[in-house]
Each structure stands twice: as C-alpha cells, then as structure tokens.
C-alpha cells in the first residue's frame, strides 16, 4: 500500500525525468539525422512531408486543390528517388506507415465525432434504455441501441456455441487425428470455405433456413435470431478451424514426441499436452471467430426481421424481434440523417470497441502462447 502511495507520489518527478530523457534522445536523434543525411536529402524529406500534410489538410477540407500538393509530392519524390534513393525509400515507407495509422485514427475520430450528437441528445440512455419507445423519430427522436446490442449478443452467442466446439473438434481432427492424406485434402478445403462470401450464406439462409424454421417450427416470423445465429456460426466455422489448427500445429513436435515416447496414447497426448499447450492459440481462434460473427452483416441483414425490441423471455431465440448493430447500420444507413445517423454511428462505435477488445485480447493471448512456447528454447 505504502509502496503504491510512494510510487504515485514519485510519479510527477519520474514523468519529468522520462520526458527529459525522451527530449535528450530526440535531440540526439535529430543530430544524428543531420549529420548522416545530405542537405539535398533533407530538403527532399521536408518537401515530401510538407506536401503530404498539405494534401491531407486540403482533402479533409474537401478542396479540389488537393491535387496540387499531390503533384508536388509526386514530383519531389521522383527527383528524390533518382538522387537519394535510400533516403527517399525510408521516407516513403515511413509515410505509408503513418498513412496506415492515420486511416485507423480517422475511422476512430469519425465514429466518435459523428456519434457525439446522439450522446448529447440522449445521454447514456443510448446504451441503457430498455423501455419503449426504443427507436423512433417521434418525441424528438429516441434511438436506443440496447435491443440491437441484445440482438448482436444473442446471435453471437448462438454462433459461438455452434462454431467453437465444432471448430475446435475440427482443428483437433485435422492437426492430430487425420491421416496425412486426409489432412492434405481437408485442410485446404476448409480454408477455401473460409472464403465463401457472407452474402451467399445470407441467400441460402433466406431461401432455405428461414423458410425451414418458419414451416417446421412455426416461428412467428420468417427469420429468427436462431436461424441467423446458426448460419453465422456455420460461416465462422472455417475461421475457427484454421486458426485453431495453426495453433495446435505450432505446438512443437518435440513436445508431442516426448509424450508419445513415454507411452501415452495419441489422444492422451492431444488432450493433456497439445491442447493445453496450444490453448491460447485456440482461444485466439475462437475469439477471431466470435469477432467475425459479431461483425457479420450481410447474412444477418437479409435473414433478420428488422424489428427492434426485447423478446420475452430475453433468451427466446425464436421471437419476432430481430435486429443487430450491423444490420441496423446496413438497413438504415442509406436514409438516416441527423441524430438518427448519429445513433447509427454510435452503433458503429459499440461494434468497433467490442471488436477491438476482442482483437486485443486475442493478440494478448497469442503473445502469451508465444512466450510460453518460446521460453522452451
């Protein structure tokens, strides 16, 4: 406790020391740069960066003069490339990196800025309101994302229940059980399946699956969370299989041989050594699959009913309600404006944040696996 206190007290001074350190390092780097780089190359760098910044600013402002700095950039760059190729290349690769990061930043910034009005309008109700009306332009506009969040959760859970166990079984099969010949066919086959576009699944779902549940199970509508979740689960399967299979495959052969050489059966080896060792990779695969299910748009858009509300009980996956965060954006994105549009952007933020969390978690988990197995060498 006192230690923590001490640390917090020290924080400002440590921060200052850190900043000073950075400053020194930066100065040193600047000096190094000056001394290592010829004047011409420095001039080229300056021009290139200036033109890129100008391009970006003009584009942001929507000006048609954007083309001028672009021309300037191309010209400087062409000259630079012919005379200081190494420096120009480094600058170019740096710029591309910055551009990549900027795209992500722009997306985040835009999502946030555009979803600000609805938050100002409704406050936290956007994410918490559960009484009717939930989504109407009446009463000055009420746009609560809660039913869609519930819908996303429900479809994702169903999809995960389908994809995770079967997917892991598939991964175990391909990597540990299947004879080599079978694996050589099945593995690429499953990878190909990962490529089937979601709209195709949607089409099948719409014409076959929805109809099947409507006719055989008397669902109140032609299209339910269950049908959509099932379809999304099937769609996410190949992803889960391939990524988990890679993880199981990455468990060093030496460890597997070690277990076998002790006279444990193959299945014991798989269960007690391979799966625990590859578990983090497998979970990363499942998380990726969940991410794909969560962000799935087209299959859900064509299959769901686009009515917003909470089934009672909430877990009734055959109710007449059906809308997810992605489908509401796809369905209403074209004709929304004002705070309605802002609400859709807020939905985008929720999606983005969730997926980002999943992605970071899976990366962390994978990093752990790397550490764990890497520690072996």
């Amino acid at each position, binding site marked *: 406790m006192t230690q923590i206190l001490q640390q917090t007290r020290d924080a400002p001074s440590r921060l200052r020391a850190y900043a000073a350190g950075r400053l020194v390092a930066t100065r040193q780097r600047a000096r190094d740069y000056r001394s290592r780089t010829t004047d011409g190359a420095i001039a080229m760098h300056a021009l290139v960066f200036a033109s890129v910044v100008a391009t970006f600013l003009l584009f942001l402002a929507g000006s048609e003069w954007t083309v001028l700095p672009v021309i300037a950039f191309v010209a400087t760059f062409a000259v630079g490339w012919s005379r200081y*190729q190494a420096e120009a290349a480094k600058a170019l690769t*740096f710029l591309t*990196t910055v551009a990549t990061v900027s795209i992500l930043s722009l997306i985040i910034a835009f*999502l946030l800025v555009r979803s600000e009005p609805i938050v100002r309008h409704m406050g936290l109700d956007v994410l918490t309101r559960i009484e009717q009306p939930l989504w109407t332009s009446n009463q000055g506009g009420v746009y609560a994302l809660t039913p869609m969040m519930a819908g996303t959760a429900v479809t994702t859970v169903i999809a995960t229940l389908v994809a995770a166990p079967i997917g892991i079984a598939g991964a175990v099969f391909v990597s540990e059980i299947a004879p080599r010949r079978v694996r050589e066919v099945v593995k690429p086959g499953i990878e190909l399946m990962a490529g089937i576009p979601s709209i*195709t699944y*949607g089409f099948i779902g719409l014409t076959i699956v929805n109809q099947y549940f409507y006719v055989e*199970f008397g669902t109140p509508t032609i299209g339910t969370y269950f049908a959509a979740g099932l379809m999304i689960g099937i769609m996410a399967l190949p992803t889960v299989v391939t990524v988990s299979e890679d993880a199981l495959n990455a468990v060093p052969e030496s460890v597997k041989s070690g277990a076998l050489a002790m006279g444990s059966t193959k299945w014991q080896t798989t269960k007690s050594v391979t799966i625990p060792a590859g578990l983090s990779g497998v979970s990363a695969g499942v998380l990726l699959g969940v991410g794909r299910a969560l962000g799935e748009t*087209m299959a859900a858009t064509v299959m769901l009913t686009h009515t917003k509300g909470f089934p009672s009980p909430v877990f009734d996956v055959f109710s007449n309600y059906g809308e997810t965060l992605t489908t509401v954006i796809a369905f209403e*994105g074209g004709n929304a404006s004002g705070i309605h549009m802002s609400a859709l952007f807020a939905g985008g933020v929720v999606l983005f944040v969730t997926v980002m969390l999943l992605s970071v978690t899976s990366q962390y988990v994978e990093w752990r696996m790397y550490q764990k197995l890497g520690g072996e060498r």
Partner: protein
Amino acid sequence: MSNVTRNRLTGADSTTGELVSQVVLGTSVLAFVAAWLLLLQWVDETATLAGVPALQLLGGAVVLIGAGLTFVGVGSRLGYLDATPSSTAGVPVGFVFGLLWAILGGIAATLVLGDALSLWLPVATVFGVGGFLGSVLPREDVGSTVPLGTILALFGASVAFGGIDANWTWSPSWSAAVFPGSELVPVAVVFATLLGAWGGAKAKLGFGAEGRQAGAYYLVGSVVFAMLGVLALLVAFIVTNGLETVLTGTSLTGGHLTLPFVGLQVPWAEFPFLLNQTGGLFVEIPGVLPAVIGTLWLVFGAVLFAVPLGVGAAVFLTEYAERGRFTQVVEVATNGLWSTPSIVFGLFGLAFLVPRISGGNSIFVGQLVLGFMLLPLVLITCREAILAVPDKHRDASAALGVTKWQTIRSVVLPAAMPGTITGIILGVGRIAGETAPLLLVFGGSPYPSSSPNVIGSFEFGIEPPFVTNEALLSPASALPYQLYSTITAGVFPKEVFTNTEFGWGTALVLLLVVVGLYAIGVGSRLYFRRKLHHE
C-alpha cells in the same frame, strides 16, 4: 530391477464384448446417418421400412444402442468380458451424463407434476446429481456405459413405443416456436448416436487409455464428418442450383469474337450469363457482365491502393523502426483494423469519403473503402513474410558492405514476395465477396444495362483536379452487390429467369470467383512452402 508386473506387449484376441460393442458402434453410425437424412428431408419422416415408420425405427435403434452399452458395461464389470478399465469414467463424462439425467428428471417432473419451476427444478437437480455420481463413482466400464445406456434406452423406447411421433409437438412456454417430433426426434437421435458411438468405440477397445482414445476419435470424427458434410452441402447446393442459370444459352461456338485491330470475326464460345448485360430492353438472357467488370475494377483499385501502402508500412515497421511502443501500437491497430466489421468501413466511407470525392455512390469510393479493408491484411502478411526472411541473408548482405536499402530491395523484398503475394490473393478473395460497405458507398442500379467504362472515361482539363473520370465517380454493380440487389429486388424483370434462379446463378459466379481466388492463394502458399522446404 523392476518388480511391477508387465502387461503383454501384444494384444488379446477378439471377444464377445468386442462383438457387442461393434454392433453398438455400427448401429450408432447408421442411425446417425439416417437422422441426418431425415433432417435434411432427403427422406420423408413419414417414410416406412417394412411397415415401420422411420422415426420408430430410429427409436428402436437407440434402444438397441442403449441395451448394448449396458450389456458391455455390466459384463465387463462382472469380469465376463476382457477389458482394462480405469478406476473412474472421469469428471467431464460425469458432467455430461449428469446433464442428461437432469434433463430426463426435468421432463419427467413436468409430465407428472406440471411445469412450475419450483416443482421440476429440484427433481432435475436430484436426477442430475444422481447421474453424475452414477457415472463417476463406479469403475470406468460401468460408469461410462450404464447411465448412458439407460437414458438412451428410455429415450429410444418413448420414440419407438411411447407415441412420440412425427405429429407430436412440444411448445415450451418460453419460446414462440413449436417443436414437432418430426424434427426434434432426428436432432435428439443425432446427439444420442454420437454418444452411443463414443461409448461403443470405447467399449470395443476395452476402456482404459486405448478405449478413451477410440471413443474420442469416433466422437471427433463424426462431428467433423458432419461439419464437412454440411459445408460441402452448402457448396453443392449453390452449384446445383446455379449451374443451369449460368449455362443458359451457352454453346461452344455459337458466339463470335471480333479481333481487335484486325476487325475479323471468329467463332467463339457463347456464354450469355457471363457476357451479357443485366438489364436493358434488348437483352434476352440477362447476365452478370456489369457486376463482373465492377468487381474487377473494385479489386484492381483496392489492390492498387492497399498494396503499396501495406508493403511500405511493413518494410518500415520491420526493417527501419526499432521494435518498441510504436511498432506495437501499429501492430495492435492493424490487427484491430483487420477484424473491424466491414459495415463500419462502409459507414466511414459514407461519411468521410463520399462527400469529398464523388458526392454519391461511386466505384472510386468503393475501391478506397475496400482498400482500407485490404490494407491491414497486406501489412500483416507482408510483415510476417519479411520477418520470415532469415537474418542470415541480411547478415550476408551487410557483411558484403551493402547498404540497408539495397539489401531490402535486392534480398529482403524478393524473398518476402511469395508470402506477400499469397496474403494479397487471400485478401482479395475476401474483399471480392464483401457486400456490406458497398451498400452504403458503391452500388447503383440493380439491373445495370452497361458495364463501367473506366478506361474510356478519362478526361483532362485545365482546372483542378485536371483529371476526371466520370465512370470512376459513378455507381456501378459488383457480384456480391448484384446478389444482394437480386435478393432485395424480389422480382426479376425478364421472363427467362425467376428472381431466385438469377440469384443462384449470381451466387455461383461469385462463389467461383472468390473461392477461385482463395484456391489460388492457398495453392500458391502450398507451392511456395513446398519449394522452400525442398531446397
């Protein structure tokens, strides 16, 4: 040295137990397949075999499985059968069986006492705990067969003799749907036979480590078999449905091709579905040419945008930047970008790019948005490929006194090319099938009567922006968008195809394009991998 008694190195001959287990296993597999046939409605649930309805037959099979399992379990326990069981079936098995028994208890209680929660829940709990203990306490041979066998026999009997038939229904109070026996029974049989096969396989190898392996392999094998079957069915379904549409009006020599420059006409294969416009008055057999061309342009633009950016950034991150906070942030960011839902990209494109570039839906914005989506994949795979270039090449080059950039250009990038190309192809496969963002920023007419003429539409001016391209700034169609339009447009304006037929045709072409790209990607990866390994 060791006074532990040794098991024989070689195994024993087959026994009665093995025979019974074999029957259980075989019945399970047959019933599993039969249940699927019913579910897929390839066999009607009213079908009969020798006068017995299909469902009842299934029930009988399950009874047989249950009885067989119980027989082997008890026989082994009493020492009549040869087996090497462990001391317990294990906790996981206990949980699964406990759950089954809990369900059984719950159902029984609701039937007898009514469906109030306070009534059935305690009963279910008691049954569940009983089932759990009954599985884990006895030796493995009894624990993993008798509780399961009993339940299977009960379930099978209620189907075979207890009146649960195709017309029986279950309408739980918590659901708006009604579950008919015609569907529920096959589903339950699928699960029952999975467990049956597991138990049978396990018993056949005499329980113990080997038995568990056999059981697990059967279980996993059947699940995977079913999974592959479903996936293959999906593909087969699209192919069979779409093939007729796609082949409508084709002939090998019916068409003709005008040779460019020469102006000569030569006979050529006629392929109206691929080569015709979708809409327009004079089109007899509507085709998907505009969508194909649109997809080509989209992919072309996205690649043109994303590949230089991605490769450049990958080079910077791996070769120039020191590993640290910055590279880590970029890594997290790109991974995040890769898993960001495509509709979010669409939203961004609609709000940011559309007003600045074309003012409306356009090919160009579509290219950019798909480029954004492709970018992280290019970056990730290129980065991986560069990292996979062994340092020994860099060292060798450095030791020859060659500068860093020269090394990157002449050694690193060429060596990283295969991996990158593979990644790009796979990425292209994904974006080529992407629909959601196109709804918001790209799509135009659902029945386009012309293909985008991008090359012919460049115009040069003296005012900024100096170069314009009207076609690039206009909406168009693409294969996935075409499929979506077909779904939403509901009715097709030409009599040749119904709307659904046209949809299946489009879906097939889309599937061929996308899966074809994937196949090239996966194949090239295999090829390069093999090549690297052999050298």
